[in-house]
């Protein structure tokens, strides 16, 4: 087990290194010059040249990457080109908001997804099941900005049940977490449904029934706990999906997280911020997958490590 863990950690580090190389290359091949962005429209050619030199943008690409990597290994993500602030400080200031949003989204998707999945499985092939199936597919395929704006319009603008946007209280969290979680809820509803159906047909359930246990007891003691196990392991993978969603959701709800930071940096070619946020997100995805891998054998001993 520990050898396996070590191997997975080394693999993860290599993946992160690969991501840093690819992101770095892509950003520097962009047809937009960061030195010109910083220098502004009234700058002379000499000013632009000076800035390029100070930032080391005139060096060959491999040297620039090497500088970046050596600084990175010392925990230095550099300073933003336009804000002049430490990138690590900017990310640290916004990370709690993103983590809170992701936690909220996980709670939403589990509550909604698992409940709907159980209902679908119990009333399999009924009208309710069919309606829920359509709903799940809709939630999986609807773009998040559409869902976000719809929720905003109905619950904040029309009904005044939630604040329109902002950050700070529980009420502010509800709509963005719901928007981000609804996508996963659709998946979980489908997975929970099939997992439940599987378990409901198991011999031990039949045995429990023939022993005369009550329906509720069978459901809550034998069926749901067993059906839920394979799904819990999926949460790690969700983090990756959230990372792609937060850019949109944070922009719609003015949520001050790293997605919004990334979006603003992309518009202005602020390369150190884009690199920083990409690496932090990549770390989150890699760690999420690692956790999912580690948790899976614990909840289901049949998944053996090779």
């Amino acid at each position, binding site marked *: 087990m520990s050898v396996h863990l070590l191997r997975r950690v080394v693999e993860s580090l290599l993946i992160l290194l690969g991501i840093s190389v690819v992101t770095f290359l892509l950003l520097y091949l962009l047809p937009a010059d960061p030195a010109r962005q910083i220098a*502004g429209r*009234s700058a002379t050619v000499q000013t632009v040249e000076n800035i390029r030199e100070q930032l080391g943008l005139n060096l060959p690409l491999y040297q620039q990457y090497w500088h970046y990597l050596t600084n990175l290994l010392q925990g230095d993500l550099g300073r933003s080109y336009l804000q002049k602030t430490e990138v690590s400080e900017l990310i640290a200031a*916004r990370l709690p908001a993103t983590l809170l949003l992701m936690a909220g989204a996980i709670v939403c998707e589990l509550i909604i997804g698992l409940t709907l999945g159980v209902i679908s499985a119990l009333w399999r092939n009924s009208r309710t099941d069919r309606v829920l199936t359509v709903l799940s597919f809709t939630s999986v395929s609807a773009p998040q900005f559409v869902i976000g704006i719809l929720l905003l319009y109905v619950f904040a603008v029309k009904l005044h049940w939630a604040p329109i946007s902002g950050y700070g209280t529980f009420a502010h969290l509800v709509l963005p977490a719901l928007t981000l979680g609804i996508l996963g809820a659709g998946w979980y509803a489908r997975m929970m449904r099939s997992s439940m159906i599987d378990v409901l047909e198991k011999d031990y359930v039949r045995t429990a029934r023939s022993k005369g246990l009550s329906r509720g007891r069978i459901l809550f003691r034998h069926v749901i706990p067993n059906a839920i196990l394979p799904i819990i392991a999926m949460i790690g993978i969700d983090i990756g999906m959230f990372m792609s969603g937060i850019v949109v959701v944070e922009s719609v709800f003015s949520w*001050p997280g790293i997605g919004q930071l990334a979006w603003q940096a992309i518009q202005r070619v602020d390369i150190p911020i884009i690199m920083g946020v990409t690496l932090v997100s990549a770390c989150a995805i890699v760690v999420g997958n690692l956790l999912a891998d580690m948790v899976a054998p614990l909840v289901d001993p049949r998944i053996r490590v090779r």
Partner: protein
Amino acid sequence: MKKHLLAPVALAVLGLAAPLPLLADDAANGGSMIVTYKDDVSTLDPAIGYDWQNWSMIKSLFDGLMDYKPGTTELVSDLAESHTLSDDGLTYTFTLREGVTFHNGRVMTAEDVKYSLDRVTNPETQSPGAGFFGSIAGFDAVASGEADSLSGVTVVDPQTISITLSRPDATFLHVMAINFSSVVPKEVVEEFGEDFGKNPVGTGAFELSDWTLGQHLIFSRNEDYWKEGLPNLDQITFEVGQEPVVALLRLQQGEVDIPGDGIPPAKFVEVSNDEQFKDFIIEGGQLQTGYITMNVKMPPFDNLAVRQAVNMAINKERIVRVINGRAVVANQPLPPTMPGYAPDYKGYPYDPEAAKSLLADAGFADGFETELYVYNTDPNPRIAQSIQQDLKAIGIDASIKSLAQANVIAAGGEPDQAPMIWSGGMAWIADFPDPSNFYGPILGCAGAVPGGWNWAWYCNEELDAKAIEADGMTDPAKSAEREQMWREIYLSIMEDAPWVPVFNEQRFTMRSPAVGGEDAIFVDPVHVPVNYDYVFSTAAQ
């Protein structure tokens, strides 16, 4: 339903507001307001900040030697009490106001003015505004790194500073009013280094009391501000990361006082029809022109007749309708409120038939194919489509290249990449209200270099010489003559037709009933977007 619920509140506020003072000078102090912006505030360092959202925040935190009368483009003395100009037009001597203190309590002196100018021109500061100071003697030595200090700037005594120029420059007092010349305290800049932009200390009406990155900034009244009775408000909260549409909804629910990004195009018709809020909409001109550039180095736009034909092919009124009439049609580079504008100039008429025959005479009877670069945010792609249709009508097949802002700017800075660019979203907004500011970087030879902003690559050396001559006329008595010279320069440019001037955008913003002040300060042409110092709270009156 929302309307009915809010109506009594609004009426009550209006009732209270009845005896409101018209001028900010008479307004009682106190109260607070909330202003929102979409984009985060990058920095509050006056040597660095060059964004829509931080421009007037910096003006409220810092002061310079000169400023403008609120809501106008009229130059007035600010930290300088008075100034004189030597007979050769080269040396300005400024006498500073006594007893002005920084937010840290220290008295501001001429040494601080000198330090601030040395700092902004030093290449290590990486100021986007360094180029504005090119006429100060010793600028080249500082810009190239040979000197640390501008030789032309001399501290005469703690209250007097003299600035010598290397050439007469009629725009110099405007330069002393832009943010980049704000006076900063050396000891604080040195204490915070690159983080000064997050810990700004100036002499301005407000001081920064809290900044939660990515969320909000809080400005509090500077109790020792040297302008008596100002600022009016005790506190301003700037909330960032707020989409303009959301900001407007929040304003209508009483949660926000000013949407800093103005009224978004998509909501414009709706709010103008809203009985309750339509009286709180404020319209103002801005020193801006939206234009199409044609790269005169790229065939067939190297042909004057082709450029003139394009000028006659564009239906500008339809483009103004595309943006719900939020602009006025333009026929020359300068906006109407800029000195040097030619009110009698008729421009190229909209005449597709004449344009077609002009093209045919130039040897393009069958038209040609070209590319139109455009910044990819609304409404620019829609405007580009309108231009595309107009060009199609005279036989020109333009494919639209809709890209991120930085990529369009980069393409325009290459001599052979972008044949046509629609400037929307990146268009020139004047740094200061003087006709010269619309020339050098965007129409002069200096801007027609790789990485420059002269995307038409138009370079007319005769006009460059005339521009230098005009800017050498520093004698205030000759200002009308100078204005006339600039007028002639822009009309000569129109004869060469490197641009199609399309429109001058109007700004539309709103205020909540809870704040007041003259309309002009909410659409201030210089303290863009809002002159915060003069806004007052209606509850405090």
